[in-house]
C-alpha cells in the first residue's frame, strides 16, 4: 500500500461514516501529480492552485491553509481541503465534514437560493503559519459549525495526514516527469476513440418535480486532439444541483478513466483534452450557486453524458454504470433522497458521535 493509500485509509477512520477522503501531492510548481482516494484529482488541483496563488509570497513551508469554497475547487461547502506547504512541494487532503453552518445540518438545504444558505465559505485561510497554529483562524472556522469538536477532529486529522505525506513529495524533476507521464497516458488513451463528433445529453434527475436541468455534451476527436464541450448544458438553476467546473472535471476524469484503459483520473490526465464546462451553466456553477447535491445527481448526469459519448466514440471498456455500482449507495448514505436533506441515519450518527467528543468550543 502506498503512502497515499495509507493516508486515505487513515482518514477513512476519522468519522464513523463514509467521509470520502482524498489526498494529493504536488511538486514545487504546485502541479498535483499523485492522488488517492475519492476521484477528485482535478478539483484538488484547483484548490491547491488557488491557495498558492492567493497567498502568493506569503505562502511558505510550514503553512497550512483550509479551503472549502466551491468557487475555488471544492464541490460543496462540506468538502474541507487542507493544503500544506512543505519543503519542495505541496500536500493536500480532503474530507467531507459533518457541518459548516447554513440552514441545515450537513449543508443540505434545498430551500437555499444561494451558497450561503448551505454554509460558510473559506476560500483560503491559514490555520498554521510556519508551523505555529493560528488560533483566531481555527476559532473562526469551528465557530461556524454546529459540531465544532467534530470539525476540529477532521481538521486535525487532515493536518496530521498532510504532515505525514510531506516525505512523499517528489523532487521537482520527478514531479515534472510524473505530470508528463500522466498527460501522455491521457493522450494515448484518447487515441483509442474513433475520430468524429458526438453528442449526448442527460437530465439531472433529483426525484423532485420542477428542479431538473439537462447536461449536454459534445465530444470532438480530430487530428489527434480531443475536445469535450459541456457548455451547451442548461444554465445554473435555483436548486442545489449546480456543479462547479472543478467538480465537473472530476466527474469527466473519473468516467474517462473508467472507460479508457490507462487514462489517469488526474489533472494531468485531463490536460490531454480540452474540457469546456461552460460559464454559468449547471456544469460550471458561479460563486453564488447552490451546489450541495451536485456530487450525487449532477455527477450522475455528467457521467452518463460522458459515458454515452464514450459509447458513441467506441471506447474499449463497457459502461460499468458508476451510479448503480457505487454512486447511489454512497449518496443515499448521506442524503435522504425523498427530501434531499441529510438522512436521518447520518443525522443520528453525527449527533451520537458528537456526544462522545469532549466539548472544547
Amino acid at each position, binding site marked *: 500500500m502506498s503512502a497515499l493509500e495509507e493516508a486515505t485509509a487513515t482518514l477513512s477512520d476519522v468519522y464513523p461514516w463514509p467521509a470520502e477522503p482524498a489526498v494529493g501531492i504536488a511538486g514545487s510548481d504546485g502541479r498535483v501529480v499523485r492522488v488517492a482516494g475519492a476521484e477528485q484529482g482535478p478539483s484538488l488541483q484547483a484548490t491547491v492552485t488557488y491557495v498558492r496563488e*492567493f*497567498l502568493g509570497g*506569503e505562502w511558505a513551508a510550514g503553512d497550512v*491553509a483550509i479551503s472549502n*469554497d466551491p*468557487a475555488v475547487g471544492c464541490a460543496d461547502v462540506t468538502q474541507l481541503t487542507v493544503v500544506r506547504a512543505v519543503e519542495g512541494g505541496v500536500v493536500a487532503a480532503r474530507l467531507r465534514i459533518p457541518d459548516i*453552518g*447554513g*440552514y441545515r445540518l450537513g449543508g443540505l*438545504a434545498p*430551500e*437555499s437560493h*444561494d451558497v*450561503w*444558505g448551505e454554509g*460558510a*465559505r*473559506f*476560500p*483560503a*485561510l*491559514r490555520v498554521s503559519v510556519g508551523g505555529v497554529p493560528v488560533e*483566531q*483562524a481555527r*476559532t*473562526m472556522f469551528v*465557530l*461556524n*459549525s*454546529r459540531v465544532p469538536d467534530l470539525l476540529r477532529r477532521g481538521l486535525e486529522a487532515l493536518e496530521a495526514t498532510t504532515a505525514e505525506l510531506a516525505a512523499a513529495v517528489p523532487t521537482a524533476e520527478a514531479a515534472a516527469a510524473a505530470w508528463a507521464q500522466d498527460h501522455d497516458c491521457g493522450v494515448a488513451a484518447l487515441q483509442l476513440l474513433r475520430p468524429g463528433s458526438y453528442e449526448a445529453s442527460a437530465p439531472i434527475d433529483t426525484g423532485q418535480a420542477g428542479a431538473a436541468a439537462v447536461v449536454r455534451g459534445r465530444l470532438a476527436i480530430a487530428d489527434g486532439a480531443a475536445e469535450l464541450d459541456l457548455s451547451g448544458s442548461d444554465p445554473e438553476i435555483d436548486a442545489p444541483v449546480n456543479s462547479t467546473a472543478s467538480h465537473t472535471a472530476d466527474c469527466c476524469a473519473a468516467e474517462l478513466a473508467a472507460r479508457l484503459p490507462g487514462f489517469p483520473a488526474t489533472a494531468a490526465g485531463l490536460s490531454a483534452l480540452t474540457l469546456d464546462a461552460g460559464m454559468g451553466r449547471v456544469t460550471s456553477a458561479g460563486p*453564488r450557486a447552490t451546489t450541495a447535491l451536485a456530487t450525487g445527481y449532477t455527477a450522475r448526469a455528467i457521467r452518463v453524458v460522458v459515458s454515452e459519448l464514450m459509447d458513441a466514440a467506441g471506447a474499449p471498456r463497457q459502461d460499468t454504470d458508476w451510479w448503480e455500482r457505487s454512486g447511489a449507495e454512497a449518496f443515499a448514505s448521506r442524503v435522504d433522497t425523498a427530501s434531499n436533506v441529510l438522512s436521518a441515519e447520518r443525522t443520528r450518527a453525527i449527533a451520537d458521535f458528537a456526544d462522545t467528543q469532549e466539548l472544547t468550543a
Partner: protein
Amino acid sequence: MSSHYDMFTTEIVRNSLDIVCQELSATVENTALSPVFTLTHDYSCGVFSAIGGEVALLARDMAVPVHIFASLESVKTMFAAFGDDIHPGDVFLVTDPYMGGTHCPDWTVIKPVILDDDTIFLPCVRGHVVDVGGPHPGNYNVDAREIWQEGFRIPPVRIVARGEVVREVWETMLANTRMPDDVRGDLLAMVGACRVGERRIRELADKYGIAALRESVSYILNYSETRLRALVRDWPDGTYEHTEYVDHDFAGNRDIPVKVSLTVAGDALSVSFDGTSDAVPGFINSPRGNTLSQVFTALTAVCPDIPVTSGFFAPVTVTLPEGSLVDAQSPSPVGNCTLSPGTTIIDATMKALEQVVPDLVGTAACDMNGADCFGLNSRTGRFWVDSDMAASVMSAGGAYGVDGWGAWAATFCALKMPSLEMAEVQFPFVTLLQEYACDTAAPGRWRGAPAVHYRRRNTDSMLCTVWNSGYRNSLVGYAGGARGAGNYWVLREGAHDELTVVDLCNGERLEPNSMLFSQSGGGGGWGGALDRDPHAVLDDWLDGLVSIEGARRDYGVVIDASTSTVDPTATAAARAG
C-alpha cells in the same frame, strides 16, 4: 474626586475625545459605500480605554446606544482573546453575538492605540453591514432556530497586523457576504476612521502627556459616576416592577414576558430580570451585550445631561438569568434582538422608572417593524438587498412638556431618515407616500408622534420578508398616556392576492408594479389625553394630524370647523362626560 486633577486639562481632554468621536463618525459617513452607512448612519463611534486592565467607555459620538454600549463587551472580549498579543498597528474585529456582539451583521472594529505598557486607548466603530451570508439576504431570518441560520460568525480576529492587512481574513469575511464590494468599502471606512482616531489620540498624548491622559480618564469616569449617584440618591428607595410583553417570537409563541425589577438603594441601582421568559425558539433572543445596552439606553434617557461613560454604569448592577430571553446562550438565534425584545426591554425598564421619576420618562425604544427585499436589479444586473428603513422611521413618543417628534427615539437616535431619492437611484422601487397618518398619534397630555404611512411601487421582481412586532404590544405610553398605533404591512396592496402582515412572512414574491404599504406606529403618549391643551389639539387638527371626530373621541375637544376654533363649552362638557 481628587483635588490634584488639573480641571482645565481634564475638561479639554474630555471634550477632545468627544471631538475625536465626531471625527471618526464623519470619516465613516464620508468614506463608506453602502447606504446603510452613508444614508441611514447605522453605525456608531466611541473611544475606550484600557488602563490597569480596566476597560472603559470614555466618549461616544451621537451614537446608536445599542451599538456603543454593547461595544464595551466587544472590547473586553478582544482583550480576553488576545491578551498581551496586541501590537502597534494592529486592528481587531469582532461580530459574534456570543462574544460581545449583538447580532451577526453588527461588526465592531477596534484599534488599540498603545501609549505605554499600561495605557491603551481604543477608537472603535460598530456598524451594521448589509449582509453576512447565512440563509437569508440581510440576515433577518424569520425561520432561524439557531444562530448558524443567521449568518457568518466572527470571533475576535486581527484584521490588520502591525499595519499590514491580514488579507486571508478579509477575504474569508468577504466570501461570506452577498455584497462583498459594499462590505469591503464599509470595512475600510471603519478601519480608516479608527486610524484617524489614533492620530488624534496620539496628538493629545503628545500635547498633554500620558500621565495627564490617565488622570483625565479617571476624572471622566468619576465625574459620570458621581453625577449619577448624586441623582439616584434623591430617588425614593424601593423596588419597582413592571412586566412588558413581546408580541411573538416568530416561531408561534405569543406574549412573551420581560419582567424588570428596579431597585433604588441609596445611590445605587439594581435591575433584575428574574421572571423574564426563558429563551425562545425564534430569533428574538438577546445576548448579554444587547440586553445591557437596552437597559442603559433607558437609564441614560432619564439622565440626559450626564456624560455617558463607563462611570455612568458603575452604580448600576444588572442581573440577567442565564439562559433567559435576555441572557441567551449559544446557539439560540438572536437576529432580531436589537429591535425585539430590545424595544420591550427598554419599555419595561422605562415603565419601572416611571414609578420613580415619572416626569423624566418617555419612549426610548425603537419601532419594531422591518422588512427586507432582495433580488436582481434589472438596471444594474447586480444582486441587491435593502432593509427599507424609510418604512420604519417613527418611534418617538411624548415626554413631559413635548409631543413625540418626527424621528426615531433614543435607542436609534443617531440614525437618519434615508433619502427617498437616493433609495430610488439604488434600488428598484419608487416611493409614492411617506407621511403622518391622521388619528394615529398616541393620545396623551403630550401625544406620541403619529404613525407614518409608507407606500412604494416596485419596479422589479423581488422577494420580500417581513418581520413585524409591536402590532398588539405596541410602544407603551407613560403617566396615563396611550400606546402607539402599532405596526403592520400590506404586500401587493390592492391586488387580488393582497397580503396583510402583522407578524411575519418569508420570501413573498413581489412582481413589478406591485405595491408595498406599511404603517409604522409612533411612540406612546405622556399623561392623560384629557389634560392636553385644547389648543394643541386644534393645532393638530389644522396640521391634519387629528380629525374632528378624533379630537372629540380621544381628547374630548370639540372643534368648530367653520371657525377653526375650539368650542370651550362643548369641550368642557365632553371632558366632564
